[in-house]
């Protein structure tokens, strides 16, 4: 076992008094203090909004900017006529490791399209946000790019997204966040 000797620097007199270091530390913190203080004051009256006096995001009011590839809540893409692009091939339901997708397929009136989802449910309470459903989809019908991360509900039943909510995220305010009208949900 080779020993490595590290020679420590001899402290000079001023190092031993710690005074220069204390002064330097105070100088740095004071610089931050006065810079941030002036920018926070200026921001509060609406000036220099581009330079922030703090790195804080005040969350419920301000959302932190997310990367575009962040896997967030799912949505179903639409055809130009507003119907879902999904052809109910069951690939996502099959690949889903959490088994949170539940599709009921029906026959599409258009002979060029075989099937369409009569119902398409995702249980967010079970979803692990792995993104396999997006990867496996042959029709680019499901994406996870809504940037909605605040999934909260008062009951498990409210965590289930139906076809309408998936096609238009946040269209159903009663689905998530709303207090349940009935006292207790049975499930």
């Amino acid at each position, binding site marked *: 076992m080779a020993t490595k000797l590290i020679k420590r620097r001899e402290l000079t007199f001023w190092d031993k008094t710690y005074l220069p270091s204390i002064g330097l530390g*105070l100088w740095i913190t004071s610089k931050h203090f006065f810079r941030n203080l002036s920018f926070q004051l200026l921001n509060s009256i609406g000036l220099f909004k581009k330079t922030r006096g703090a790195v804080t995001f005040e969350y419920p009011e301000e959302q932190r900017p997310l990367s575009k590839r962040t896997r967030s809540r799912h949505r179903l893409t639409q055809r130009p006529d507003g119907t879902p692009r999904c052809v109910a091939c069951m690939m996502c339901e099959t690949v889903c490791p959490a088994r949170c997708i539940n599709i009921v397929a029906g026959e599409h009136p258009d002979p060029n399209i075989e099937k369409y989802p009569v119902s398409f449910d995702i249980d967010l309470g079970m979803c692990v946000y792995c993104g396999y459903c997006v990867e496996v989809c042959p029709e680019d019908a499901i994406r996870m790019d809504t940037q909605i991360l605040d999934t909260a509900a008062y009951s498990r039943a409210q965590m289930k997204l139906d076809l309408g909510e998936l096609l238009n995220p946040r269209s159903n305010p009663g689905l998530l966040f709303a207090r349940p009208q009935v006292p207790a949900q049975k499930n």
Partner: protein
Amino acid sequence: MEAVLIKSALAGAFLGMVLNLAGLLTWVERKQSAVMQDRLGANRAWIVFPKWLAPLNWLMWIPNRLGLFHSLADAVKMFLKEDFVPKGADRLLHTLAPAISVVFALSAFAAIPFGDVWHVAGRSVNLQVADVNAGLLFVFAMMSLGVYGVILAGFASNNNYAYLGGMRAASQMLSYEITMGVAVMGVVLSYGSLSLQDIVRAQGHLFFGWLPAWGIFVQPLAFFLFMTAALAETKRVPFDLPEGESEIIGYFVEYSGMKFGMFFLTDLVETVLVACLMTTFFLGGWQVPYLGPEGFAFPWGASIALPHGAVIGLGVLSFMLKVAFFNWLFMQIRWTLPRFRYDQLMRLGWKILFPASLVNVLVTSLVVAWRG
């Protein structure tokens, strides 16, 4: 009778100012630490009135956004918490200890002058609660007696950790008190008085016609020694071994509710007290540079005449500004420096600060004796 009333009014005003400032310091502590760490800090304790009182809500807008009501929320929380006395603790001493701490810390303010003698309506009002001719000794006595609160808190809690914390606090405060006292002796020798009002008045001269004869210029070494020792006396962060918020267990570990709040308040009141003392000894108390009894007389010859009331008012304002500055500085130090280790603390106190303060006294005495 009249004198008593005047003094009571003065005491009330000063006490109110000090307590409010101490309460505000909890907010300053949060906000200043946040701002210097690139954060926003506490801003969610809002007072919001119902819609029909909308004008009051507009008034509340700024304090709400600043988070000023966090200190109020803190106080309410302290009062509502359970007041717990541990099993086997000395009930009387356990209750008495925080009171002793806070009372002695507050009574030390009596000897601090916050303004000159104010001649109003045929009376002369000395803007100082008690013009003790040995005011300095009084202040130091009060600060020393404050140690009892700490020791009793540790002793009466029936908890070994609290006991050790109390011992740590006592030895730290006693050690640094010596340095503090000896450092101030330099100031006393320079100005030749123990009365704080006289010390402040003596700082009104000018050196070379332009430099105010403030303690910081007369006794620069004593300034640093006194500041270090006084910071140790307040038991706040570079010297917060007695308390050690996050890691060590301090003397008030068995305290809850407003009794803990009183210890907390004592720390902040002591910060204000130390700021007041620093102002009095080293920044000329209520002196404004170049302001005489008749108004400003600048060294370059210009002068502005001011009425008596304005001169006094400016003095009180300058005192408050200086105290505010020192509070800012102490907070900045508190949020910049890490904590000392206990042996480092004792070495600094006994082997560096104490000899340095003795040398300071010696040199000052020689100079004073030489100048006759």
